């Protein structure tokens, strides 16, 4: 087959899986919340409420769409578009599994392996804030604007610590390509062994970047109504909410690839040898393992949301600037010293 067609198919599959997982994250979120609060959760639509996301989507589409007459119409529409676009763009560089060979051609289960993959990821994440800011400002509503300002200052603040955590990771791995990072973890240990502090900083920042509890300050019924999406209705609101779930999925995938070996799992080659599996079968098993890790991290996001109370806004800023930032700088420093002492520099 033409490599271009294969790429197009992979793009479509990744896009579809991203949307599917994000859709069912909304269902999982309610079920997890229900279990933690000793409730039943959604159970009306379909068996065990499995068709609930479908019902939600229909509801979102069928609702009346209101664009406030005082708002800035074009920017009001642009806001959710950017939020959705940046959320789906991040899946490009993630390696989903080992290479698969069909006939003569071998192709990677990755849309593209950029040699600046981490920077690409970081750039797209830093653009995500525009969707929220533009949407909040274009609504021409004080609560929306305040919510947008909260969200964007939170995201800017935590991006810094996140960037420093990534720098320490790049120091130990010596590459910016996600594929190589994952391959290195096949040969050695998972990166979390070398970068435990970096992992903790990264995951806290990931929570803050996706505006998830305990950092979901942009939405606050008692202070800000709905935050930046107060004026949004129908599927535009749906896009904002959906973008959050996509971000959660991609963050989980990134955390798994950076720190937990990506699609690799312990003793995979021994297992493949013992069972006499072909390379393709191993690759498919790796994809399954990778999605297992991703689903675990999505569950972690929900677990934290329904366990830990949210921060106050000044506590959020203190944590970001006075704890995580110095900690991540110290992490870089210590990483450098240890690498120098081990003669790896």
């Amino acid at each position: 087959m033409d490599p271009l067609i294969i790429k197009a198919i992979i793009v479509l599959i990744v896009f579809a899986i991203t949307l599917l997982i994000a859709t069912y994250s909304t269902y999982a979120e309610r079920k997890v919340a229900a279990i933690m609060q000793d409730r039943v959760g959604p159970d009306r639509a379909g068996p065990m409420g499995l068709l609930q996301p479908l019902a939600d989507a229909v509801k979102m589409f069928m609702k009346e769409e209101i664009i406030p007459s005082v708002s800035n119409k074009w920017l009001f529409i642009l806001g959710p578009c950017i939020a959705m676009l940046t959320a789906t763009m991040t899946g490009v560089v993630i390696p989903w599994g080992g290479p698969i060979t069909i006939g003569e051609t071998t192709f990677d289960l990755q849309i593209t392996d950029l040699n600046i993959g981490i920077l690409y990821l970081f750039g797209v994440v830093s653009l995500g804030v525009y969707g929220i800011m533009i949407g909040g400002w274009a609504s021409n509503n004080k609560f929306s604007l305040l919510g947008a300002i909260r969200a964007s200052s939170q995201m800017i603040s935590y991006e810094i610590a996140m960037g420093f955590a990534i720098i320490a990771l790049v120091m130990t791995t010596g590459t910016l390509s996600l594929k190589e990072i994952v391959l290195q973890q096949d040969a050695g240990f998972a990166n979390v062994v070398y970068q435990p502090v970096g992992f903790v900083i990264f995951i806290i920042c990931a929570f803050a970047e996706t505006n998830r509890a305990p950092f979901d300050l942009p939405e606050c019924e008692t202070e800000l109504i709905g935050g930046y999406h107060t004026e949004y209705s129908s599927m535009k609101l749906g896009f904002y909410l959906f973008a959050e779930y996509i971000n959660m999925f991609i963050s989980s995938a990134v955390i798994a690839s950076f720190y937990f070996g990506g699609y690799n799992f312990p003793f995979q080659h021994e297992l493949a040898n013992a069972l006499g599996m072909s390379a393709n079968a191993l690759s498919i098993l790796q994809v399954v393992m990778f999605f297992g890790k991703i689903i675990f991290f999505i569950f972690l996001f929900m677990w934290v949301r329904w366990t830990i109370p949210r921060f106050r806004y000044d506590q959020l800023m203190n944590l970001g600037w006075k704890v995580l930032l110095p900690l991540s700088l110290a992490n870089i420093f210590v990483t450098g010293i240890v690498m120098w002492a081990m003669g790896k520099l």
Partner: protein
Amino acid sequence: MSITQYIFWFLSFLALMSALMVVFSRNPVYSVLFLIVTFFAIAGHYILLSAQFLAAVHIIVYAGAIMVLFLYVIMMLNLNQDAEPKKKTYVRVIAVVAIGLMLITLVGALKGATVNTPELTRTAGVGTVETLGKVLFNQFLLPFEVSSILFLSAMVGAVYLSKKNLQ
């Protein structure tokens, strides 16, 4: 024309048009958004010159950080046409004359200049992080470190100025 040339012309057109729109927009928020588009077009040019690292950093630093702060300030101040200060007529005339003189100077300066095309070494790894890092930390180590100290002092100055209780 090859596809690279088409992309080049498209990016150049986009960069120039959005740069003009930055100046001509009446609404400052539109100006900021057009400036972001300009930065993207320039980042595209970097990629055409096979400097992917520079393109990524350009997006992260300018579009992702600096313009967010610009947008932030403009939204906070809520600048719009009503808030725009009205200049007196003679001030406007002076401004036009001054910019006209500047234009004449620029045209005069550029008329005598010769266009020399720099020799581009388009080897495969010219814009990668490895190459850039080696050049920065070997050939230009001192300027690189000095500029980082400059940034640090600027940051300290900004923090100091924003402190409320100055003694």
